[in-house]
């Protein structure tokens, strides 16, 4: 498959001050490689601190990797090419109201990317904005409404319309429905699903919710402490999760299932280590029930199982 957006061996570290006041390095990404194909939907899953939002920022060109490359159609993203890059990759963020300009109307917010990139005449921009507003289910009467007058679901529709205006090829959605109510979440997810065949757009869907990811994405990337621990076709990975972390995440996802029990307490330790002080060997070993001396000593190399790649010493077992 042709890749549209590629991330190769990307690392990103931040200098922070620890509790003792001494400077230290947080390694948010530790060598992440990932390719998004045309019209593909890739889900990135992991808990807070796994680096998924840092990865999103890097994919959007909003942050620069410490090392490694981001490529669009094979062309490397550099400081000078961010504007062209922005046209191809557009964001949808978690906080729908916070991501809109409160002093501009809905229509002005939606056409902002066109105005900023000077695409088309003002008349064409207005027409495109209205067209997209209707596509995302915002009637024309919302044209002159301000974001503060919108509900969370409506604001997220505005954000989606805005992201689509420059006809991007990739949409990077960072927890797009976590702030919404269940009944509204479904509306927004359906909207994202519905526009895929029409626009041929690729989705990068960042979430902690594997139940949503299961339906949204053909491929899943599970991240833990800045590394990809398991990746492959969603159905295969979730049918038989090979990495103990994927298993833990999957079994902790609570579907509405009365009578079903909560996952057992001995599923594993739920406490993520300090990202400024990542364990030696396998980073997951401090939470893993199966960890051995080998896991303490050596970081597991990714192994291939059909279409699935897993970084665990005992993935075959």
């Amino acid at each position, binding site marked *: 498959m042709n890749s549209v957006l590629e991330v190769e061996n990307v690392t990103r570290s931040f200098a922070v001050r620890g*509790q003792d006041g001494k400077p230290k390095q947080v390694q948010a990404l530790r060598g992440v490689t990932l390719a998004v194909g045309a019209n593909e939907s890739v889900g990135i899953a992991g808990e807070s601190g796994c680096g998924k939002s840092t990865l999103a920022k890097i994919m959007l060109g909003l942050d620069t990797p410490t090392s490694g490359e981001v490529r669009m159609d094979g062309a490397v993203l550099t400081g000078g090419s961010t504007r062209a890059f922005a046209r191809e990759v557009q964001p949808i963020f978690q906080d729908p109201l916070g991501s809109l300009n409160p002093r501009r109307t809905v229509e002005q917010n939606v056409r902002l990317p066109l105005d900023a990139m000077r695409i088309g005449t003002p008349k064409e921009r207005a027409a495109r904005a209205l067209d997209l507003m209707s596509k995302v289910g915002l009637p024309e009467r919302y044209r002159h409404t301000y974001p503060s007058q919108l509900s969370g679901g409506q604001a997220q529709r505005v954000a989606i319309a805005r992201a689509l205006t420059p006809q991007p090829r990739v949409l990077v959605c960072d927890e797009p429905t976590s702030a919404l*109510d269940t009944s509204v979440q*479904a509306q927004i*997810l*359906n909207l994202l699903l519905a526009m895929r065949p029409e626009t041929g757009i690729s989705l990068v869907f960042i979430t*902690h919710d*594997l139940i949503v990811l299961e339906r949204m994405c053909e491929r899943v990337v599970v991240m833990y402490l800045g590394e990809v621990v398991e990746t492959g076709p969603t159905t295969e990975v979730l049918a038989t999760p090979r990495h103990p972390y994927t298993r833990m995440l999957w079994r902790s996802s609570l579907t*509405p299932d009365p009578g079903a029990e909560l996952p057992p*307490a001995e599923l594993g330790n739920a406490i993520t280590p300090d990202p400024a002080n990542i364990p030696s060997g396998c980073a997951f070993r401090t939470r893993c029930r199966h960890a051995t001396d080998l896991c303490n000593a050596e970081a597991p190399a990714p192994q291939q199982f059909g279409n699935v790649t897993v970084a665990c010493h005992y993935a075959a077992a």
Partner: protein
Amino acid sequence: MSQPLRMSGVSIDLKLTGGRVAVVRDVDLSVGAGEIVCLVGESGSGKTITALAAVRLLPRVAGMRSRSVVIDGTETRDITDKAFGALLGDRVSIVFQNPMSSLNPVLTIGEQLCEAYLTHKRGSRAEAEVRAIDLLERVGVSAAADRMRQFPHQLSGGLRQRVMIALAFMCEPALVIGDEPTTALDVTMQAQTLRLLKDLARDTGIGLLLITHDLGVVSRMADRVVVMYAGRVVEEGTCEEIFAHPIHPYTRGLVDCAPAHASNGGFLSIPGEVPALTATPVGCDFRSRCPSAHADCHREPPIREEGARRWRCVMDRKTAQAAPTPASAALEAEG
């Protein structure tokens, strides 16, 4: 053992610049000893403010009317704030969503855990410490004795929430209220924290009122479910009944759109949005989103009862369950 909570006829309004807005209307809610009750609803449905009203933590702009609020056998409607404060600290604990804003940043974990115990004269300082360490260990805090000397900022979010849970159980209350206690946690931590809460409630016979919007959580935790919509209770029943045989169209829609496992296909949703509380329609609040709405729905719907099951709809059980759900109606409309 008396019932930890029984409130009836509770109405709350907020004084806003545009006038008074009714946010909770005529709500009855009870929690039995050892029972886990989930109060479910979307944002703005009034679930949090109902629970806050039970413990008199309403904001200044709120006005409350009630027929009765009984906490652990004591009618509190007419007692003074001071007397209520003493009862509250002793008999009711609350776990909020954000542990950082509920813990005192300048006191150690140990001081905070012991303070509640000592204030309510449960025993000596030494006894308080023993109990605190025991509870911390039970909620899975490792090296509990060391943690007692630490400050909240030295703990991770998940650990802080565990400390909050230990704190809630410190004085052996009759009722614990959890307001989205695990919503801010990662899924693995959420699952474990819920298990701790459930085990503690079961072991101690404490009533647990859990406020949440997450039906996945509800299905694994609740004995009984109370569904709120636009400030009113629209349905109430046992967990099994609510999930397997929901009656009210809103409950049926909610159950439909809670995502279950499926590898493809769209998500079911309830079309439309919750009405603004400043503009609730006359009659049934849900009628603008209900596929079965008709002329009768412009009048106040009756409250129907069958044993412990209650719902607020013009339709009886049979008619309601035979009607299309909001989600299925939306699918048909899309073709």
